[in-house]
């Protein structure tokens, strides 16, 4: 043990880093194994998440009413620590854009971090091209509002209040601006689905949203909405590791208590 830590120390790896490594490593092989297993044996059953089921309905309603859907992709971007949340938002946008392109629904997606704008633009364009639309960017479809979070909220509040939106989807990394936007949505009687990862926003997601996605549920968008195998696999891996963590916590408590 002492020898091992010495070797690691020479490599510039501290105890903390080694522990991190041990926590990270299982993800890679497990993801591959579970991915293959799902492809061979079929999908695992998923706990129902009403937010994703209802999103479908709300989009249908928006289409039928001839009004548009708004997707807020949060105030995080890519190339930062919020990349994972932004990817979840992109998965949701991919789903909404595909639906919209197929049915002629108008979609407005708004971003706050400029790094997310080109990616969102690509996702929407791809969805439209897949349905036979000409390859072009509609500047009004994916909008950069402002990199200032409160200004972003102000801009989105204006869109919700004055453009013919019937459905508001908010997934991504959010701060207090979430409540500003969602309250205006609720006041205008919009159908709202949303969620974020920050614990301090979640209590306010309920009163103003019709359907909520709590915490890590937003990362499941790719599995629930798009049915991607690798995303399903990653949910299964997360569950395996969740069990492992619970076990680790229990063992740690035992050791600490008896020490």
């Amino acid at each position, binding site marked *: 043990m002492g020898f091992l830590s010495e070797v690691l120390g020479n490599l510039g790896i501290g105890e903390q880093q080694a522990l*991190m490594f041990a926590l*990270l490593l299982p993800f890679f092989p497990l993801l591959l194994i579970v991915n293959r297993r799902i492809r061979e044996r079929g999908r695992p059953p998923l706990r129902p998440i009403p937010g994703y089921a209802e999103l479908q309905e709300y989009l249908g309603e928006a289409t039928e009413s001839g009004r548009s859907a708004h997707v807020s992709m949060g105030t995080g971007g*890519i190339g930062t620590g919020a990349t994972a949340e932004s990817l979840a938002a992109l998965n949701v946008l991919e789903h909404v854009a595909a639906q919209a392109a197929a049915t002629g629904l108008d979609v407005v997606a708004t971003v706050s971090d400029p790094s997310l704008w080109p990616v969102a633009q690509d996702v929407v364009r791809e969805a439209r091209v897949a349905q036979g639309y000409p*390859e072009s960017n509609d500047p009004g479809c994916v909008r950069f509002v*402002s990199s200032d979070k409160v200004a972003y909220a102000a801009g989105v509040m204006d869109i919700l209040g004055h453009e013919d939106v019937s459905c508001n989807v908010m997934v991504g990394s959010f701060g207090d601006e979430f409540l500003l936007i969602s309250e205006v949505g609720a006041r205008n009687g919009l159908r709202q689905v949303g969620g974020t990862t920050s614990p301090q926003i979640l209590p306010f997601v309920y009163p103003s949203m019709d359907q909520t996605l709590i915490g890590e549920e937003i990362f499941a968008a790719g599995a629930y909405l798009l049915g991607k195998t690798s995303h399903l696999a990653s949910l299964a891996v997360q569950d395996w590791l969740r069990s492992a*963590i619970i076990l*680790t916590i229990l063992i740690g408590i035992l050791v600490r208590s008896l020490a």
Partner: protein
Amino acid sequence: MSEVFAVWIAAILTLMVYSYLLADNPLYRLAQHLFVGSSVGYAVVVVVHNVLRPWLFAPLLEDATANWPYFLPLLLGLLLLTKARGSSAWLGNSSLAFLFGVGAALAIGGALLGSFLPQIQASWVSVLPGSAGGGPAAANNILLALGTIGTLSYFYFTMGVRKGPGSGFVRVSSTVGRWVLLITFGAIFGNRVMAYVSLLIERIYFLLGDWLGLVG
């Protein structure tokens, strides 16, 4: 004179925003558009002067041969600009790939180092009165552990859905988690209200003090 004028402008803009409380109205919309516009302009100014100039242009202009690596972000940045047009957008894929690569690593590293590891270690608490430092502390620690485990298992996606060896545990544990989550949300609700009220008080001080001069 100009100071008084400035305070008046700020006060009027503040009141324009508050007019939204009565109803959505043109004054409010004007204020919000001004806000969005100025924030975008400000962001551009800051980015050009605080990022692009010192981090990119200065090193390249000073000594391009010594600072040759900076041609990489310059190239990737310029390629990213092709995303403005749909037909040439694929040129910018590499720039986005760069951002996603860095972002993925930062997300993983940050989550491991900042949340995962410390929080797991923090949940290793003693549940025996002897080593925890008294009966109440031990009781709290038991609640802490149960709450953490319960909240964690509330989020199971694929386990406990079908009847199996662990489904009973998941069901019971996620029920505990639901309660803990609700209590947590209640607590956070209280906290957030406090934050918002503080902001309101700050604005009231501005309006009553700086503008009207009613309070010192």
